[in-house]
């Protein structure tokens, strides 16, 4: 159980994290989402004691991370895969980490086997590809058989096989009852892995809820309809108190009505429909909506946010 209370971290004049409060429950995959620069990495660094908070506290099982008896047995964290001395072999890299927590030497071989790096154990890690470095970093997080694992943007730059491997790993670790805390700036990445979401933007908490609530809490489903009598239908919809907007290819995006209500409305008005589809809000859309105001560096998007261009949730 990780508890973050009123965490504030400033770098000079810039506030990276602004009175952030949340908790991470065991046995779940908790996704930590936010646009680039939202303060995800800073929050993780504060949890691990790499950076000192200006205000607030962070505890792991009620203690600050440096006070834990065997830190690696409690938390395994991978923030940067390339944060290793490239001149050291994979084996020696893991050995020097294991020794700090008095972990048995054979453990190094076990985790290397686990991530599939046994064959290159004696090789210096500067020659490793990003995928191999990522595996080496994950091996390090598992050395202490930790209750909590933390990954910062673990799939960045990985090939599809590597992404799949990490997803499976996270699910397995959570299924074993471990707490998994994983950050990403890509909503689609969380869609298949996370049970719980913590969303931040500009260092502030935007949402802390289950995945289901997150999707439901966004502006939700809309209905796409196409008809030759667009004007007549829009008038009827507006009269019922729902909203209609122009979608692409001559369709209308309707919010505030179900497909059943719309179908009945069209029937009673004698309007022919060519299409009537529920468009479930994707996680990506919900995320964009939530964080739109908190994106730190936003290019001017001509035409702004375009409704109806993101269809379904199968991103």
């Amino acid at each position, binding site marked *: 159980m990780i508890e973050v209370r009123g965490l504030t971290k400033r770098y000079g004049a810039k506030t990276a994290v602004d009175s952030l409060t949340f908790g991470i429950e065991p046995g779940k995959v908790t996704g930590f989402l936010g646009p680039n620069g939202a303060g995800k990495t800073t929050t993780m*660094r504060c949890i*691990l*004691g*790499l*950076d*000192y908070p200006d205000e607030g506290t962070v505890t792991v099982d009620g203690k600050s*991370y*440096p006070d*834990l*008896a*065997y*830190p*690696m*047995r409690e938390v395994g*964290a991978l*923030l*940067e895969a*390339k*944060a*290793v*001395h*490239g*001149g*050291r*072999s994979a084996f*020696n*890299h893991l*050995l*020097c*980490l*294991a*020794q*700090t*927590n*008095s*972990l*048995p030497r054979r*453990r190094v071989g*076990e*985790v290397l086997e*686990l991530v599939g790096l046994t064959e290159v154990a004696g090789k210096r890690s500067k020659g490793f590809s990003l995928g191999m470095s990522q595996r080496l*970093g994950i091996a*390090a997080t*598992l*050395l*202490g*058989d930790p209750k909590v694992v933390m990954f910062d943007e673990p799939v960045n730059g990985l090939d599809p*096989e590597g992404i*799949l*491997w990490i997803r*499976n*790993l996270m699910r*397995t*670790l959570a*299924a*074993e009852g471990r707490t998994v805390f994983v950050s990403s700036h890509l909503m689609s990445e969380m869609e298949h892995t996370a049970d719980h979401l913590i969303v931040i933007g500009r260092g502030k908490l935007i949402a802390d809820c289950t995945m289901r609530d997150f999707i439901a809490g966004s502006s939700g489903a809309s209905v796409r309809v196409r008809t030759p009598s667009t004007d007549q239908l829009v008038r009827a919809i507006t009269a019922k108190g729902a909203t209609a907007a122009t979608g692409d290819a001559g369709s209308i995006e309707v919010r505030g009505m179900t497909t059943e209500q719309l179908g009945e409305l069209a029937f009673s008005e004698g309007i022919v429909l060519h299409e009537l589809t529920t468009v479930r809000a994707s996680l990506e859309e919900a995320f964009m909506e939530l964080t739109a105001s908190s994106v730190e560096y936003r290019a001017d998007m001509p035409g702004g946010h375009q409704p109806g261009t993101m269809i379904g949730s199968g991103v």
Partner: protein
Amino acid sequence: MATITTSDVRPPALPPATGHAGLRGVVASEFTKLRSVRSTYWTLGALLIVSVGIGVAVMAGQSSSLTHNPGNKAGFDGTQVSLIPFFEIGQLVIAVLGALTITSEYSTGMIRTSLTAMPRRGLVYAAKAIVFTTVTLVIALVTSFVAFFAGQAMVAGTGVGASLFGNVKIPANAIFNGPGSPGSPPKVTFQGTDVISASTVLSAVIGTALFVTLVAVIAFGLGAIIRHTAGTITTVIGIMFVIPILVQLLPDNWRWDITRFFPDAAGRVISVTVPGGGNPHLWSSWPQMIVTACYAVGLLAIGAYLFRKRDA
């Protein structure tokens, strides 16, 4: 379909532990770090080559000079001459290792991985300092003795080589009596003798190794403060070489008063074995060593404070 199944990613269970991760494991870890990178072997190899290699070359030159010009035997300090390359140049080589021990953690980003595994920073810093200082001291002692013995072997036939096993008498003064017959050395008469005791030689050889170790600790402390390899090495060179040279440009009547307070001064007195051969303006060997030690301890302490206080 997933190619890696659940059982493939399940980490084997770890037997439970009691107590607290402490200094012992972190010391083992720091030793693993030091022995598992090539730069350690490069710098230690360079230290031996520079100190012993140049020392032997210098002593070979001295041997020829002592044969062709016996007057040079008067006051000849075989111990110091054999150790000069070690404490003048070798100290810089080992300073590079001292700097790298800590700055390479920052240049590679390893420091963040290290401190994630062991967040008790005081422990990490202490273990690093203990391992580095111990390894450096051992290597410095070995280098010092090897440079000494190899150097003395080069002047073995001259009768003025120093010894760790007995007192050696050397002429105190030489009077030049004109050139010798063609092909033979100039004529000299010697006046008085100086006795170089074995214990003085031993303390010079060990003391020089201690001095070099202290310089390495200075580099380590500066490394923790500066966190940048090139910046740290430049600063060490500045303190140990450039400032002493600049000070020589100052007026004689007061420059020695400040020279005593520089960390490099000890190197020049600790290696002296001939009675009265020291620099009369500096303090004697061990007080001058305390000055160097104060720099080492002071910089180590500032480094420790900053290592704990700053964001990693």
